[in-house]
């Protein structure tokens, strides 16, 4: 079994690994909420159960999980410091992690304090009744110019400004999108009707191969294509589904 089809049962997601990847890439699942360690454990479980080490599948899994780890660690880092973070030595990274954990600990205790304060206030209730009708309407006559209209102009100007794009140049981002690969596969389906996965990816890089696989899954899900594979590692043949 390929890593892609491994079934996951996580807090935020249930289903095959590849679908999770697709959803993450489409930003429909928040990577920050995905417990990657759980995925690794599930994969190790799966390896133990199958009793054999499928090198190809394991490599694929490692590539995918490493990419997810990198992406997630970047999401958790302060954006301004991205460049500095790249150069960390392992000890520095460990120190940073320690500092993070201590910081979190501090806020967790502050949170306990707040929860206690709230509980201590429980018996005090404030009145929440509408004003008597005669006081409810602010009267126009006593209204005075109190705001500067420039503020509104500045607010609109701020909203018209397109924020500077985040600098993600050093992140190994896929240069290929799911949409592109969908288009590519649909084109092949139309022109050839039946073709092999190898033909579809040619000698493209790993990321392109992975995204092409996601695209294939999407087509399968949408009922546009079927595929066959006679044996593990055998060529994959793709063909259009006849309605």
């Amino acid at each position, binding site marked *: 079994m390929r890593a892609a089809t491994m079934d996951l049962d996580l807090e935020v997601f249930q289903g095959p690994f590849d679908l999770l990847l697709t959803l993450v890439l489409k930003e429909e699942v928040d990577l920050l909420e995905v417990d990657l360690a759980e995925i690794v454990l599930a994969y190790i479980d799966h390896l133990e159960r199958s009793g054999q080490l499928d090198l190809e599948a394991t490599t694929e899994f490692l590539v995918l999980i490493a990419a997810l780890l990198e992406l997630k660690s970047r999401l958790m880092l302060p954006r301004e410091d991205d460049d500095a973070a790249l150069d960390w030595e392992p000890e520095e990274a460990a120190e940073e992690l320690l500092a993070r954990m201590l910081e979190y600990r501090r806020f967790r205790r502050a949170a306990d304090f707040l929860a206690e304060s709230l509980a201590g206030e429980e018996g005090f209730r404030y009145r929440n009744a509408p004003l008597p009708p005669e006081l409810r309407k602010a009267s126009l006559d006593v209204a005075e110019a109190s705001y500067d209209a420039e503020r*509104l102009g500045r607010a609109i100007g701020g909203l018209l400004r397109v924020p500077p794009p985040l600098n993600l140049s050093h992140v190994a981002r896929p240069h290929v999108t799911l949409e592109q690969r969908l288009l590519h596969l649909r084109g092949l389906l139309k022109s050839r009707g039946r073709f092999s996965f190898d033909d579809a990816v040619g000698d493209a890089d790993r990321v392109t191969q992975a995204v092409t696989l996601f695209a294939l899954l999407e087509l399968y899900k949408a009922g546009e294509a079927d595929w066959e594979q006679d044996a593990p590692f055998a060529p994959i043949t793709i063909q259009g589904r006849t309605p």
Partner: protein
Amino acid sequence: MNELARIVEALLFLSPDPLPVEALAEACECSEGEVVEALARLREHYAEGYRGVVLREVAGGFTLATDPVAEHAARRLLARPRTPPLTQAQAECLAIVAYLQPVSRPEIARIRGVASDSAVATLLERGIIEESGRSQFGAVLYRTTPLFQKLFGLTGLDQLPELARFDPSPEDEKEIRERLLKAGEQRAQG
């Protein structure tokens, strides 16, 4: 004042509506006779002319209300338009309504890149914006009010500051609404 009278006082204080004796008895888990007695004690406390708040028996039960002695001050404090400084969220929502009116809530959220319900609610509550029909998709539309113009010292909407002065890329010829929505999408992704 005994404990029951204290509790009855607290309940009358909290309730926006007059409370019948039965409701008080049920909440306090006591007899109606005991509530009547507690109310009699409270009445002594709240005898008219001594306090700022009085105990009234109106249709439907008992209620606390302010004494007319405070009416002038209450009007000064509460009937005056409330004008605390606008938060950034409120200023952005108000600017969107002012320049694009009429405009719907989903559109405001798309331009700002975040849901803006509480800012819009505050502007509505303060009477600075108001509803103005519905869009073809059924969403409520908003526009500014005469109070808005008065609070901003404007004699008409054509007196809003020239957009060109605040436009970071005035060479862009597209319609302002379209450009705001586009920038908003970018922000929501950022």
